[in-house]
């Protein structure tokens, strides 16, 4: 299935060169877990702090679980960030 993958902040250099606006389309297995996607882009697990599917946060205990990602979903990842 095709999903959109986004990577931001100090992790954005891990995106492939074809990425536009920090986003790239990627084909993943129907049963792909969040960690499968994270590993595909070589994002260190410790740096994958905010992991969102369509803007909704998924914690570390859910990231090895298949079936969370659906075709057309947007998976977006940030390292620990804050501001104000």
């Amino acid at each position, binding site marked *: 299935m095709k999903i959109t993958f986004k990577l931001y902040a100090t992790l954005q250099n891990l995106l492939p060169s074809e990425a536009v606006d920090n986003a790239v389309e990627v084909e993943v297995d129907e049963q792909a877990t969040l960690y499968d996607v994270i590993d595909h882009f070589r994002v260190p697990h410790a740096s994958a702090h905010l992991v969102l599917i369509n*803007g909704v946060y998924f914690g570390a205990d859910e990231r090895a679980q298949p079936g969370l990602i659906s075709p057309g979903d947007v998976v977006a990842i940030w390292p620990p960030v804050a*501001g104000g």
Partner: protein
Amino acid sequence: MAWTRQVLRVNLSEGSCIPEPLNMDWANQYLGQRGLATRYLVEEIDPQCDALGPDNKLIMATGPLTGTMASTGGRYSVITKSPLTGTVACSNSGGFFGAELKNAGWDMIIFEGKAAEPMYLHIENDSAKLVPASDLWGKSCWETDEMLHARHQDPQMRVAVVGRSAEQGCLYSAVINDLHRAAGRSGVGTVMASKNLKAVTVRGTLGVGNIQDPARFMSAVNAGKKVLAENPVTGEGLPALGTQVLMNVINEVGAMPTRNMRESQFEGASKISGEAMLEPRESDGKANLTRNGGCFACTIACGRISTIDREHFSVKEKPQYWGNSGGLEYEAAWALGSDTGVDDLDALTYANFLCNEDGMDPISFGATVAAAMELFEEGVITTQHTDGVELKFGNAQALCWAAEQVATGTGFGADLHLGSRRLCEKYGRPELSMTVKGQEFPAYDPRGIQGMGLTYATSNRGACHLRSYTVSSEILGVPEKTDPLQTEGKAGLVKAFQDATAAVDSAGLCVFTTFAWTLDDIAPQIDAACDGDWSPERLVEVGERIWQLERDFNMKAGITGADDTLPQRLLKDAAKSGPAKGKVCELGDMLPEYYQLRGWTADGQLTAETRSKFGLPS
């Protein structure tokens, strides 16, 4: 003991500058800066006084750690009654001015009365004098800073100044120090200008030499710096991308207030984000961001130093704006950008430069322009009001024009000086004002971050994110992740953030340290610097006392529990997209519990028991 124990009292009506000892009983109860100066304000002014009249006072206050080697220990605050909200105003600024004031030997300056003609206060250590400033009146903050430095011939002298917007009565004018740092919110600069006080110049060479236990202080400070350096937020993220790292995050989670908060996601967010500020532009290959910058003693350095594309319409004929200056922080980028629907990074940077140059709070300015744009699109404001300008959402030229008008108070700028609430009231559409207690919202839609709804409704200075930044927990997972769409537990979360932040704001430290530090990291630094025992528990108690004192002032000023609310748009109109789609802010689920935790009545009044518990003045 870190306090200098010296207060400078400046009576502008009489032209006197008189030192007096700091009230140490109050320092022990309220620590410094925000808390301690509020205690002085409560003692010395009638809460119902005219904020822009001579009976109001304005206090510039440092904290015990201001001017020390503690990381971020360069903060000062401006405390007064706000002309925008009618509540207590307390606006915190970094840069170098606060540390310089402390190094000159002063914990705070209390300004009272009103000068007969424009003046500035010049301080060199224990020497303080008022100097005529008629030649400075009518000049921008930047021009004034340059003229004062030329006059005094001391490049290390620090300047805090008000711009033309404040002189013209703009209700959200800031005090600008060090060219682009601001005590930004609630119109504290407007109060300063109302007293005919144009600037404060200060040079301090005395140092902060009265640390209680220097060896233990150095050890505690070094331990704190290590925590900041090793934390990925304060050690990597903030220096690299600044607060602007949030633009894409908040948009992704569906909490980006857009087009006067009609929507909660902005299609142009990526173009005005921290990541976009790093992208080389086509014209000259340079990025918007030149480098990061730090305030006094800061080991985070989140500040942005930026340039505008010289080919951009806003500055093509204005070379004075081609150089480096203070760039976009997230709050400015949001208010000037998504709230007005403008996704032109250079236009936002130009408007931000003007906010610094003439001392406008970019949050209130941007949100007021956004309200005006909605009034324009509704046909209430027309091109007859705007001298032909199409004040529509997304119009970058209109945004830049508005900034120029507000900077000088000309034309439609006089209407924009009113702020969102008074502007919408003037044009008969008060429901379009996105404010609480008259102050414009910051950059988080409370339909998507429920705790921020309670934060805004109960903030002691009107809508504000810096009174309780629950975004940290609800969205960013710092220190622990909570669900932004749930209301359960948020009353306690908001109260905890409010109390801890009040303590940090009173210490002389930057609240951004708390992305890495807890009070367990901060207390040892205060404890080593100050006499007395300063535990984390005592800091929480001091923080809560400050909160209660501010609330008490506001109630005496005429605020009631009915003012602890949000615009109907956020309570009735559901979010249209993102994770919060279909949701409103459920303030009613959180407010009663919050009142209970505060020890207030069901209608938000302080009880006699609560007043007694915290030793509040009668």
